[in-house]
């Protein structure tokens, strides 16, 4: 093979590798769940979320997931939420999954909420028995951590396909937290709830749009 041919082969290989890297980076940066805005306007807005035991739809029907309700009332499979800065955010989470308990019981105490409490099914709590929790909603940078009570294992009419409806077994958790300056904050569930993955922390626990997301404070 001549020197020119070898140089051409090397250049083609480098170009192919570069193209793959660029494709990966562009895909990573551009493909993300849609942003769901809170309803209402500053200084007080409302977020409505639901957790489901299994999404029930492609591409991962058996993955546990959060969903968010957009301002038109439609459930969207997304965990990228937009809220205004320096505001109070009232959150309602409809929790359709059963209890598995917290790996670290420490997260059973609500933190970072207005008043340091949450409301579970009409009852105000400053701590939830960690064994009764199914998931958590946590924004570490704001100090927010809320345990979500699971539905009973033997509850009738349990939901298996998202979006779930309020006629199906669920618990309702409400609380409020305050936002600060604008920024992009991560939020996550602290329960190792990814069934079938090592230590329960693979798959949906490592994926934006499922049990992790961003809070776009703007």
């Amino acid at each position: 093979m001549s020197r020119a041919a070898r140089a051409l082969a090397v250049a083609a290989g480098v170009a192919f590798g570069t193209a793959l890297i660029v494709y990966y980076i562009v895909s990573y940066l551009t493909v993300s769940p849609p942003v769901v805005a809170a309803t209402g306007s500053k200084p007080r807005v409302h977020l409505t979320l639901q957790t489901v035991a299994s999404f029930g739809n492609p591409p991962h029907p058996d993955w546990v997931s959060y969903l968010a309700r957009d301002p038109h009332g439609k459930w969207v499979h997304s965990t990228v939420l937009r809220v205004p800065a320096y505001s109070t955010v009232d959150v309602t989470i409809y929790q359709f999954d059963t209890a598995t308990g917290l790996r670290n019981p420490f997260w059973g105490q609500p933190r970072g909420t207005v008043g340091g409490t949450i409301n579970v099914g009409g009852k105000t709590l400053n701590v939830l028995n960690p064994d009764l929790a199914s998931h958590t909603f946590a924004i570490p940078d704001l100090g927010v951590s809320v345990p979500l009570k699971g539905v009973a294992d033997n509850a009738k009419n349990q939901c298996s396909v998202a979006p779930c409806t309020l006629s199906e077994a669920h618990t309702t958790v409400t609380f409020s937290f305050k936002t600060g300056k604008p920024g992009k904050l991560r939020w996550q569930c602290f329960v190792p709830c990814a069934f079938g993955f090592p230590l329960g922390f693979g798959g949906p626990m490592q994926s934006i749009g499922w049990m992790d997301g961003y809070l776009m404070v703007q």
Partner: protein
Amino acid sequence: MTTIAGEPVPRHGVRIFAIWLVLTAIAVPLIVLVLGPHLPPPHMTVESVDQRNANIVMTALLVPIALLVLVYFIYSFVFFRETTDAIVDGPPIKGHAGAQLLWIVLTSTIVLALAVWGSYTLIAGAHGAGGGQGPDPAAKPTGYQHALPVQVIGQQWEWTFRYPTYGGIETRDLAIPDHTLVAFHVTSLDVTHSFWAYELGVKADAVPGVDNIAYVNPRHTGLFQIRCAELCGLWHGHMSKKGRVLASSAFQAWIAAAQKKNASIVKYLPKYSRVYYPAPLRRAG
């Protein structure tokens, strides 16, 4: 000036040695006096000071070696360069037992000296050099029996801290008193993390089922950065926060407030243990 076949040949060895000697005489004091105080880690604890002193000594010893290689390389590049197209043999090279012996003795001495110095720092000075010594430390500092135990718990993706001598409370914040020997008991609830408190001179692996002990003795109050130094998943980069070294009285006030703030969850926490094997590892559907 020596000659080969009647041609004068400069004494390259003497020249190289002279250049190296001058550069070393300039570089080593600069390393020790100017760069040394800025080498990591900062001087927040007794242990981190020992680590930095070790870094200064190591650098001061390594620079002459690096300079020798560089000087020889650059000298050869300039003076031994063949500028003509003719391919000719160089002068014959003969063995020099003295030079070989000197090289072996010198390099062996340097390596052994560094090993002795490193071991001394690891064991007697820095008490494990911040990397953690596992559940049964070999290098215990004086008064280790009375060290304040603070358990560092890594979990995806947050650090929490337990104070077994203060009712076993757990907190999201880390504060320690100054001029007090602290024993960090580093562990994990899931995958391997690494507790990196840079200013304290600590970077200890947090391994599930392992109590990894690292001692620190803070010299003054201030903030220190906490990070995870082991790639542990999606939000690994977010496992960072600020810790605080407080004056003793301020620490007592802080721990009292923390006990009050976290009181409602204490009854649900597992009994303090050096390691945890937490359930659940499942998800109900």
